[in-house]
């Protein structure tokens, strides 16, 4: 048993999945037809935390299937596609437990997420090697942070705003099932890694799913939690960044090629702070009644 209660992230591989007995697992698939089936396979011995479906086409071309209703779902699509086609998909997605992520590298993504959120679809940005448009990103943050009417969530900003604590750090990689405090990644050969990137790069913690129960004693695992402290040993853009607490250097590797994260996330941390203080004030105002 995994005492640390990690959630295991694996590929769409039935043989592998049948080997575990976890309280929660995330399965990544690229096959829309497989979503419902893989959900049922997981439930035989595990519990589904989420199925992550990556599609190559635009969201508006997707044909959600009936059996998707049974599973919590993340859909990663490059773009939303044409609005009128999206409206058709929207009606099919509405009854599902789904969050849709669009690629941050496309100019229109930032507006499309506003559209989707305003029409009740929980959604978010995902980041890959494509450059981020920080100006558009800041507009999207404003949209999320200062809503005029209730809307669906937009990640990772919604997560940051709601989880923010003035004296704590946040790791929003969890939105992408990539926070080692909560998720571990495993391949078909049972190699276990801290992150999806480490798994791809062959940087494994160990081999064998049964070892996960002793992960707290694993040296590489323990070392990971010290690494962020090392970032402050020398002056760097991230160590001097006011937004560090909510970002944790997520965009560190694109600081030179695609600068702008500091300004955008500094605005976001200010907004998160304001949001937190407002919430605190609201709580203060509530009169304490006796228990009935």
């Amino acid at each position: 048993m995994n005492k640390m209660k990690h959630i295991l992230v694996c590929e769409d591989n039935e043989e592998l999945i049948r080997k575990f007995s976890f309280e929660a697992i995330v399965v990544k698939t690229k096959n829309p037809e497989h979503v419902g089936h893989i959900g049922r396979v997981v439930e035989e011995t595990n519990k589904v935390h989420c199925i992550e479906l990556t599609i190559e086409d635009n969201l508006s071309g997707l044909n959600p299937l009936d059996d998707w209703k049974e599973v919590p779902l993340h859909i990663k699509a490059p773009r939303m596609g044409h609005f009128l086609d999206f409206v058709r998909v929207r009606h099919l997605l509405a009854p599902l437990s789904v969050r849709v992520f669009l690629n941050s590298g496309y100019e229109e993504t930032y507006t499309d997420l506003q559209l989707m959120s305003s029409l009740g679809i929980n959604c978010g940005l995902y980041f890959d090697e494509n450059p981020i448009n920080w100006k558009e990103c800041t507009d999207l943050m404003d949209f999320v942070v200062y809503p005029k009417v209730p809307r669906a969530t937009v990640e990772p900003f919604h997560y940051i705003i709601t989880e923010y604590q003035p004296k704590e750090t946040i790791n929003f990689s969890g939105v992408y099932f990539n926070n080692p405090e909560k998720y571990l990644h495993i391949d078909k050969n049972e190699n276990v890694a801290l992150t999806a990137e480490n798994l791809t790069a062959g940087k494994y913690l160990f081999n064998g799913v049964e070892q996960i129960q002793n992960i707290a004693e694993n040296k590489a695992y323990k070392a990971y939690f010290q690494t962020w402290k090392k970032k402050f040993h020398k002056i760097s853009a991230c160590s001097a960044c006011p937004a560090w607490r909510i970002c944790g250097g997520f965009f560190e590797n694109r600081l030179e090629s695609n600068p702008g994260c500091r300004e955008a996330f500094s605005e976001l941390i200010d907004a998160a702070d304001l949001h937190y203080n407002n919430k605190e004030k609201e709580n203060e105002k509530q009169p304490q009644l006796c228990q009935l």
Partner: protein
Amino acid sequence: MANLLITQTCVRSCPYCFAKKHMDDNDREGMMNWKDFIYLVDFLEASGDRHVSLLGGEPTLHPEFPDYIVYLLERGFSVNTFTSGIMNEKRLRRLERVLAGANPDKISFVVNINDPLKSNYSETERVKCFLESFGHVSSPGYNMYRPKFEMGFLFDYINTYGMRKHLRLGLTHPIAGKKNAYIRLPEINQMIETLLSYEEYFIRFRVKAGLDCGFPLCVYTDEQLGKMYKISGGRLTFGCGPAVDIGPDMMVWCCFPLSDYHKKSIYDFNNMQELLEFYREKQMNIRTEVQGIFEECDTCHWREENMCDGGCLAHQLNNFVNEAPVRMPEVYQV
């Protein structure tokens, strides 16, 4: 209900055009983008308003016009579009396809129709094509800009295309600082006579007249008022805005004739109530300087009793455009 101007260009150049000054003074290519549109829809919804009017220029020229309508419907809004009905075949067919399944109780068009005998042939034919497709969700609009005019064609259109039996009648007003055709004050009586010469048509075809803003009460005789009462279905008002127009640049103004007075950014307001309050106050201030279009307005008991607002302010403000600023600042363009 706010008017969202999604374009600033038009396919016609009507002699009375109330949007002309605004279009001339602004970038004709300017169009409302999605982000601003979403902001405005949120703004209206937050104000408890689920009705919106789309205007231009010609709003159907916006490449996303059908998408905007669908978006509004998806958000639970009802949408009214002020259009000339002139669009090319491709656009018309696309609009038809997109709105095929839309709830007819949630969409409407006010088609501003000019006298076909005074319009060019191809324009008139395009309007007819539009009405063939959308007549059942359209009502005609007609702007009276001459004291004598022909209106029979409007009833023909209503009957031929199964249009809604409501005729929106606009009294044309001057645009301060611009030359446009409009009904001069001494011409109003003649205009009313012309209008009421169609009383029988209204009654026979059961069409109701909806009077736009700026009609003065005292220009009617009691007999005319009685007729107006009947053809308007008992809905007679003699008010003056604010109408509230919001442009593609997110600037707001009270109404087109006053588009250069007290222009503000939409971001200066938290909701429609604040915005309306602002323009009501401005109008009240202006009315302390000019009570109405006639000298009699100063002491008029109909005005005191809020039965008439004193006609369209644009008539009086137009007189102040070129004078030295000796009056209260509210009456001058800024």
